[in-house]
């Protein structure tokens, strides 16, 4: 849709097509971060292993989405702004988000004792949540080079064909993230609880299937 059907933008030409990846990835990077911090918080409150596991499974995909948002942003910035990178509020806060993801993941793997690692990493995630509204509102609070939102609930300044393509891509990114994260939680559970009988039973089913 985005590549074949949506019309060429009047001012940006075909470079704007990057939007169909850039915006869904940026949305996911923020949504996944909130989800990761929320499951981390649930894990800390109830001392629940499964909640930590979900939180941890989100981190890798979230970090990837953040990287994609930054990467496509750079490739979009070059032809339209004339620079790969500017120290703009939106861009800088998104970069901080990437560092938060990386910090979470490296803290998790740096501590040997799994429960301690989960607790420490979750704490980082929860504190880092303040960055998400900063990213979201950065285009309003500061005078930034990055443009404001084109899509709001009341009015949308976008061609309906572009909008349709973007909504499909957003839905696809959601579906992808859900599938990947749940699969990772699933495998992580099978891995960590490999000593239990039900896991061995489950694995033998998997073996027969493949």
């Amino acid at each position, binding site marked *: 849709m985005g590549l*074949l059907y949506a019309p*060429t933008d009047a001012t940006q030409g*075909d*470079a704007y097509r990057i939007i169909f990846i850039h915006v869904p990835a940026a949305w996911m990077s923020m949504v996944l971060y909130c989800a990761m911090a929320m499951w981390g918080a649930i894990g800390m409150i109830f001392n629940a292993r499964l909640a930590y596991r979900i939180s941890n499974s989100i981190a890798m995909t979230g970090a990837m989405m953040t990287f994609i948002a930054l990467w496509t942003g750079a490739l979009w910035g070059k032809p339209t702004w004339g620079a790969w990178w500017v120290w703009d509020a939106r861009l800088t806060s998104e970069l901080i988000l990437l560092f938060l993801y990386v910090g979470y993941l490296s803290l998790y793997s740096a501590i040997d004792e799994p429960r301690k690692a989960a607790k420490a990493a979750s704490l980082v995630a929860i504190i880092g949540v303040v960055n998400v509204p900063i990213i979201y509102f950065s285009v309003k609070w500061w005078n930034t080079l990055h443009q404001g939102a084109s899509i709001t609930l009341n009015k949308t300044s976008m061609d309906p064909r572009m909008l349709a393509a973007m909504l499909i891509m957003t839905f696809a990114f959601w579906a992808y993230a859900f599938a990947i994260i749940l699969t990772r939680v699933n495998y992580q559970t099978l*891995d960590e609880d490999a000593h239990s009988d039900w896991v061995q039973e489950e*694995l033998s089913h998997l*073996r027969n299937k493949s």
Partner: protein
Amino acid sequence: MIWNSFAEFVDMHGYWPYVWGSFGVSFFLFLIEINSLRQKRRRLTQSEPS
């Protein structure tokens, strides 16, 4: 369809390095992630029950 020819589509009116660089790297990363989960599954199913 807004393109007149396949060559025009590939060229993206001159913006092809940026457009395909974005789409390419993103899908490459998705494939890497899917593949890493496949390998994890293989490791899980191949380790013999103790």
